[in-house]
């Protein structure tokens, strides 16, 4: 699929390609945050990609960010491109901050990037955001938040954390609110989780012990955080699709290069249909996923149907990228296990993505209910 060609996207390609596979190999092996990559994006104003020019943003369209993400992943960040697209998307949430905070935060994103972690899921509450138990109690000066959060990415490097908490336990109005809190607040205990995959970032569980926040920290409306979060999370799913597709194409590029050179019985293994056809099948499905993802990216996020598009895009991206990376892995034979052949990184990362932001089965069940009108099964 050829891309829209324009300056902004070309800039992303130029920048991202300067961080080659050996850079990412080093980052994953050392398990360090890729500061150089982050800073390079920040310096070039790319975190303001879709933000309004009045904040110093580039004012580009969402579909261009989606294109750019596919490119950033393929050349050569893989799922490391998550840092790019999530850094560019967070402004869409912070647009709903109170007046006293909004302009300053958005300017910072455009000038130097802002590291923001999302603290939504909990040990006892996974796919169903409405079942969280972290509670924000109202008092004279604001709110006091108590609870625990799970699977919080980048809490160690974050400037801010967006905490999802219940602000009302009344029957029929279990209001959820988003709070923007200082990541270094003493009342937030961060426990690092030892994990496999996505070694460019750390995951944490958080214990929030009577954290006091002001009214000003609320993003959107009290008790109605989900209204704002819903469309941004849907945009996140489309961008995730883009990153998956780019990463899977990088895996295929790697496998095809290998298969064209690797000789067995006097000819390249790429001439074997048992190698070639599964790769081609995956490539065709990725092509389809990309065509649909770009279609989704052209729908306005405020429209009701955008959610359906984003769910279908993500399912297609997950299915096709997993097929691609697993077949690419197989193509490398024994070399797949070697760190220096890079494929194992892509394989682990894509495997994790079948569970985040939502398990694939939940996505299927949501499509079955919302788009096929079958009874809710989850």
């Amino acid at each position, binding site marked *: 699929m050829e891309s829209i060609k324009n300056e902004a996207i070309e800039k992303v390609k130029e920048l991202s390609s300067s961080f080659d596979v050996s850079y990412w190999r080093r980052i994953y092996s050392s398990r360090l945050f890729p500061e150089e990559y982050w800073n390079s994006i920040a310096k070039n104003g790319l975190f303001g990609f879709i933000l309004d020019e009045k904040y110093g943003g580039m004012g580009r369209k969402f579909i261009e960010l989606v294109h750019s993400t596919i490119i950033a992943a393929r050349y050569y960040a893989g799922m490391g491109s998550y840092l790019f697209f999530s850094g560019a998307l967070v402004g869409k949430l912070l647009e709903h901050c109170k007046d006293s905070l909004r302009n300053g935060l958005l300017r910072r994103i455009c000038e130097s990037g802002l590291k923001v972690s999302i603290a939504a899921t909990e040990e006892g509450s996974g796919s169903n955001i409405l079942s969280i138990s972290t509670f924000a109690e109202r008092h004279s000066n604001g709110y006091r938040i108590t609870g625990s959060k799970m699977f919080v990415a980048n809490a160690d490097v974050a400037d801010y954390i967006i905490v999802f908490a219940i602000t009302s336990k009344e029957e029929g109005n279990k209001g959820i609110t988003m709070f923007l809190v200082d990541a270094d607040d003493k009342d937030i205990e961060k426990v690092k989780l030892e994990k496999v995959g996505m070694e460019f970032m750390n995951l944490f569980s958080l214990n929030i012990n009577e954290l006091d926040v002001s009214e000003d920290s609320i993003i959107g409306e009290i008790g109605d955080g989900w209204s704002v979060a819903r469309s941004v999370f849907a945009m996140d799913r489309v961008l995730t699709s883009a990153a998956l597709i780019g990463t899977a194409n990088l895996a295929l590029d790697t496998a095809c290069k290998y298969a064209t050179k690797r000789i067995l019985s006097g000819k390249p293994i790429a*001439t074997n249909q048992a190698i070639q056809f599964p*790769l081609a099948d995956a490539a065709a499905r990725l092509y389809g996923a990309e065509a649909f993802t*770009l*279609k989704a990216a*052209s729908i306005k996020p405020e429209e009701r149907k955008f959610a359906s598009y984003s769910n279908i895009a993500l399912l297609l991206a997950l299915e096709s990228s997993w097929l691609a990376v697993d077949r690419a892995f197989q193509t490398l034979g024994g070399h797949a296990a070697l760190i220096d052949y890079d494929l194992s990184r892509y394989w682990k990362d894509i495997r994790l993505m079948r569970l985040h932001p939502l398990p694939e089965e939940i996505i*299927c069940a949501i*499509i079955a209910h919302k788009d*096929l009108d079958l009874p809710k099964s989850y």
Partner: protein
Amino acid sequence: MQLMLSEEKEEHRIIRESLSSTISRFDNLYWREHDRKAQFPQEYFDALASNNWFGLNVPEAYGGAGLGLTEVSIAIHEAARICGVAAADIIMANCTFGVETYKRFANEEIKARLLKEFVSGRHIVSFAITEPGAGVNTLDISTKARREGDGYIINGQKIWITLAHKATLMNVLARTKPKDIVKKRTEGLTIFLVEIDKIKRGSIRIKRIDDISMRALGSNEVFFDELFVPETNIIGEVDRAWDILPTILNAERISTASMSIGLGELLIKMACDYAKQRIVFSRPIGSNQAIQLPLARAFAQLNAAWAVTEVAARKYDNGEDCSIPANVAAYLGAEAASLASDRAMQTFGGMAYSSDSDVERHWRDGRLFRTGPLPEEMALSFIAQRLLNLPRSY
């Protein structure tokens, strides 16, 4: 439930609604009976003809609507999702194999004479390429055409020619220059337009095949015996069919993609409707994840195939090379239709095995696309070579 189509232009929505109002009266019983009896759906054909559907992509200068392959694909897709494959294939036969081919590659005399006749529904078109000894290996065809007077004499045999027994126009691929003397491997083939009711010398004999897909339309063996075709009826240039075949075949792939996707959608709708009302263990079977999740996956895959089909049709109409999206669309459409039909069969349980439920008819028709217009293995070879730059494997 329908595919994510709502981003389509107003004109496209109107095409769908208008076609629907013309054809939705041809119900399951109608198609079931014509499939069972292997009988041409004349009333359906007449309804399309009298509502000018075969003039959809005929240029306005010849009395048509002047639209492109994009609009033809939409019509094919809509016909498939309302009535199934046979209904859609008739549109491909006339609009793609006929109008699209002639308007691009026939000479002015042919265009001026024939294109306006499509608008009034006078024609049914067949495309005769494959032979018993030449399926995907088109260059190995042995049907020959030798020069004589102001035309050519054709001798040979074709197989798997849809609608040959009803055709008024047949596009015949024949070898005009022997393989061993051509400079380029792909040289020496010519497409001849045979006007069935104007045959002056020689003959065509048609033998129907008792087959299992698109039975209402019929597939055939076709035998040419000293058949004379005037040289003015050559489509494209002598010996240079290979210059224009890729474009024609791309249009075919975009059309079959549209057809298979529409069929897949029809099957999912049937399966969901059934699953919502079939009660087992006190609840609709559609509430079981084992029933509903595979349908959701098939639905998503159909959406992907359609997105690629739209890209291919747009490129085709813009005169750009569309071979990659056209072949990917055909491949994904076939795969998605196959998954949808298999899951529909499974969802219907025992009822799938009754012909009256219609699922098996659509299942038989849908399976065809994994073999025609090209076997999926050939589609994968094409994708491997063109998209992944891998070496040829055969």
